[in-house]
């Protein structure tokens, strides 16, 4: 039974963690509101998987505090653990076991185990229960791991690169399942992925991690509405270098500047444009553009 209902499913404050002297996370702070689908993005080595493992209680931070569903994940009781579903980047399944046996083996560990959900997903993913797991494709094994994480009916679902080995059709089915969960008072979903088009379709919140800290954490709609690229051209006076408040990245090509920045109000460009005697145009960016420009800043 849920024991508390904090506003945030995940709260991390000032979390640092190093491996062999190399910092994976440094002063990492995160808030994941309950009931959201939170897309967690970062380049390889940015600290995503370490953050997920800390949230799952598998890695202990060197410094900082973490609260998952109101509790320090390193102090999770069995009951707390049953409230969190975790699909790791590289799931380990018993390859010699038959699919049906694996589900039967896992079910008794979880009081909320949803047999009907398992039956429905096994049918919709067209998985043969009588086969040994090792005989299935990588994609099918991934789907089984996903079913295991869902069947326990968690309040928080942690998914580390869940769809990377799925083909396009299987990915769409998988996304629909995640969206289907939300429609019935479902869990908070914390999802890391390199497949930004998937994230763009389902996520309502976006976090971007770079160099071990969280650079961006906000609703996807706000991100797309306010992070813009501005092209300045026809300069009377070349500014030489480009420092603007809120700029993530500035690139120069000949007599043009391309600046990615936080634009709350287009009028904020009038003064700088006038002072350089430049003209400008504003371009919308999709999530991939925003991600690249923030990760490269």
């Amino acid at each position, binding site marked *: 039974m849920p024991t508390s209902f904090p506003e945030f499913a995940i709260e991390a404050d000032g979390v640092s963690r190093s491996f062999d002297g190399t910092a994976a996370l440094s002063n990492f702070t995160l808030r994941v509101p309950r009931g959201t689908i939170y897309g967690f993005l970062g380049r390889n080595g940015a600290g995503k998987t370490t953050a997920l493992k800390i949230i799952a209680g598998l890695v202990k931070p060197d410094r900082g505090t973490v609260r998952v569903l109101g509790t320090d994940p390193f102090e999770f009781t069995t009951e707390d653990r049953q409230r969190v579903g975790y699909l790791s980047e590289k799931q380990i399944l018993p390859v010699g076991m038959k699919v049906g046996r694996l589900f039967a083996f896992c079910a008794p560990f979880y009081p909320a185990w949803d047999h009907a959900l398992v039956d429905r997903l096994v049918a919709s993913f067209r998985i043969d229960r009588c086969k040994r797991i090792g005989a299935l494709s990588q994609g099918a094994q991934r789907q089984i791991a996903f079913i295991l994480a869902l069947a326990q009916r968690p309040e928080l679902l942690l998914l580390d690169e869940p769809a990377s080995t799925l083909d396009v059709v299987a990915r769409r089915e998988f996304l629909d399942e995640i*969206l289907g969960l939300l429609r019935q008072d479902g869990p908070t979903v914390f999802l890391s992925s390199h497949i930004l088009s998937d994230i763009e379709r389902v996520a309502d919140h976006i976090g971007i991690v770079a160099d071990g800290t969280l650079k961006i954490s906000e609703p996807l*709609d706000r991100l797309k509405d306010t992070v813009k690229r501005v092209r300045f051209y026809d300069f009377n006076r070349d500014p030489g270098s480009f420092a603007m408040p809120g700029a993530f990245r500035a690139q120069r090509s000949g007599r043009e500047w391309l600046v990615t920045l936080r634009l709350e109000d287009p009028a904020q460009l009038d003064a700088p444009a006038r002072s350089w005697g430049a003209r400008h145009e504003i371009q919308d960016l999709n999530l*991939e553009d925003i991600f690249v420009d923030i990760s490269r800043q």
Partner: protein
Amino acid sequence: MFLYLNPQSGLPIYRQMFQQLRERISSGQLAADAQLPGVRELSTELHINPLTAAKVYQMLEREGLVEFRRGQGTFVTAGRKPLSAAEQQKLIQPAVDQVVSEAIHLGIEESNLQRFIHQAYAHKLS
């Protein structure tokens, strides 16, 4: 209901949905009193987050284009009050600004732009 959504566009999904629904309502494709699909149904069909669909319906309601009827669903508003000139201008101004700045970039004279707009009106209303 079929809407064309491109999640990889720089325009957020909620804006794409809002524009298409507003166009369908104002063009009469969705007539007064027509019922819109429920938020869950629509988000399932379009493979999108239900919060996004709910947000779009709220925006349409704020503009008076749809109304929520308790226990029944969402309907295109009947006998809509026409927008005031100021409200109309507020809605159209961003699109006008964009067209005008595009025209200036291309070196199109104001009188020529007015002629293009006149032709577009004639075409749409014919």
